[in-house]
């Protein structure tokens, strides 16, 4: 329960846009090509399917210290394959990221310390070998940052983060 339940990101320069797009080949390329062409600075881009098989959902995090989020939104609208764009920074929303972290385990002492960290963060242990543990964590970016920082002293072997996904409340 440590840092959880923080709904909105504390970082005011991170702006969340959600784009619903046609689930067709090449659409991701059109979106990423737009960012490159307009020199937009994007922190993360997460893409997945929705309950409608013809629609994909992209969550885009824009660093507004470098890029005007309103211009990103307006340019996204110009793409024929973009169905809708929502700006989730203006409304209450749940923002989440998932991470997998493989940590080095030196000995049993360290193993039990790592388990304590996992419990504290309400993370899960999803794989274990004699010299490593894989941790799965879902939360906002700050929470993911924090657990990574905590686990660093044991020796992190590998990290993967999904990038932010988001949904408006209500």
């Amino acid at each position: 329960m440590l840092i959880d339940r923080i709904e909105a990101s504390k970082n005011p320069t991170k702006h969340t846009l959600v784009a619903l797009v046609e689930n067709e080949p090449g659409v991701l390329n059109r979106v990423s090509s737009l960012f490159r062409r307009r020199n937009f600075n994007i922190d993360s881009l997460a893409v997945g399917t929705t309950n409608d098989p013809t629609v994909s959902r992209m969550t885009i995090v824009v660093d507004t210290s470098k890029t005007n989020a309103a211009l990103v939104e307006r340019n996204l609208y110009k793409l024929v394959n973009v169905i809708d764009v929502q700006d989730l920074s203006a409304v209450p929303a749940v923002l989440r990221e998932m991470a997998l972290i493989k940590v080095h385990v030196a000995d049993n002492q360290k193993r039990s310390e790592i388990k304590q960290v996992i419990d504290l963060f309400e993370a899960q242990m999803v794989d274990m070998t004699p010299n490593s543990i894989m941790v799965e964590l879902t939360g906002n970016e700050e929470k993911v940052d924090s657990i990574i920082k905590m686990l660093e002293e044991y020796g992190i072997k590998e990290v993967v983060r999904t990038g932010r996904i988001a949904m408006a409340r209500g």
Partner: protein
Amino acid sequence: MQLTGSQIFWEVLMQQGVDVVFGYPGGAIMPIYDALYDVEGKIHHVLVRHEENAALAADAYWRATGRVGVCMATSGPGATNLVTGIANAMMDSSAIVAITGQVASHLVGSDAFQETDMTGITQPITKHNYLVTDINDLARVLVEAFHIAKAGRPGPVLVDICKDVQQKMTEYVPVTEVNLRGYKAAKPPKKQEMPRLLSQAAQLIAAARKPIILAGQGIKHADAHAEFIEFVEKSGIPVTTTLLGIGVLNEDHPQNLRMMGMHGEAYVNNAIADADLLIALGMRFDDRVTGNLKYYAKNAQVIHVDIDPSEIGKNVPADVGICASVKDVLRDLTPMIENHAGGYRAWYARINEWRGDTKAHDVMAYELPPNMMLAPQVIRAIWEETGGDITVCTDVGQHQMWETQYFQHRRKNQLITSGGAGTMGFALPAAIGAKFGRPQDEVWAIAGDGGFQMSIPELQTVMQEKLNIKIAVINNSFLGMVRQWQELMHDRRYSSVNMTSPNFVKLAEAYGMCGMRATNVAEAREVIQRAREHNGPVLMEFVVEQETNVFPMVQPGKALNEMTRREKVPLPAAMGGGMEGVRE
């Protein structure tokens, strides 16, 4: 009805009202050309000599008619040759549909002969593009392409059609409806927002003492000429146009100050710099019209109307930004403003003070040795001899700017030129496209010796199509605009701008075309007269002074009102003129 993909292609084009296409055949588009054989008479195919010129001609056809221009090429090099023309259409918001043949669908991605990833290449320079791998998508895609090209802010759409799609057969069901859930021509402000935006705009206009209207091509695209003139005349506000906005208001109109920007007249740029309100209609604050943004119109509030939401706030922040058709906005806004016709006396007086000494800086005021001819004099002679009643297609460079200064445009959409992209070699293919669009019109291509030498092969297209086009080549033996920049910014280090030319009269003869040459103003007038009397295409060469510069000029990085101007010629007192506004 069972039809091949190729037959469906032409069916859809006819359904869309297409009667002329500009193109060049080749391997991957041969089935479509084979099917063309059966519809000739209904659709005329113009065989250009280079695919780029097909795209440029299609672009000019759109500008001349408001109907979507169509160009086509085969895969690979044929398709890539279209790219410059497509980019030109993108920059100037021209509705064209570019058709390219592609290798058979099972070969896509295999680096097959003449395979090029055209949807990949053209993604940033099209509004949208399609790769058609299934014949059952073909009719829908083509109908969508025509719709997207024209809707909202116009632009190019490319349709890349696999060869097997052209060959297969399917039941043809005409597509009459476009259903694009993701595409809104504009993202209109919410209904309840519009009245608020309009009343804010009306308030800004009511409060302004030194307002100015910046008129762009969006007014043409919205077909808002009537609404625009009503707004202009009721508001009494002075108007300046962008390069592509030339022709939205008669240049004789007392409120029309004419073109703004890098080579706009000094008093126009001074007025913008001094204004307290900019009313920007269907224009995009291109760097060539703003100069250095840091110093741009610092005392002005900004009303910006554009149908493209991404243009509002892109370069110049808008105090009132309205994303909508200029036509709709002006229709509702004009009744909301006070009648101020004949108003703003102090403001006009100030502008006229700046205007006062313009003539003194005019190159025409110089006393020239006999036998020396300046390019602006050629433009002026064409204007005077033709009565200005022609369609003008200019190329890119010095002559293009002189055309805006010395040709007074009185007809709407009279000038066809490459603005945003600045595509050299535009004039001749543009004149070809424009002539098909306006067959009754006297169509002139005006080019420099550089740009014209990029499009010489199209002389034969002119001959083959028996097009009565007048081609004026203004020859200063330099790439003039580049030379001017080298003179002003690179210490006269003339690097690779010396340009030799063939004997244009003999060249014309080789093409079976009438060729003429003039080296002074009297000859120029005679050549223009004879060319107009000649019933057929004419190539005219005008040999002009080599190092004349286009002034005023806002050099890159400078503020809009920080212009380099020509040295003043002492004028007889009778011609008058204040001294103010002269800035070097």
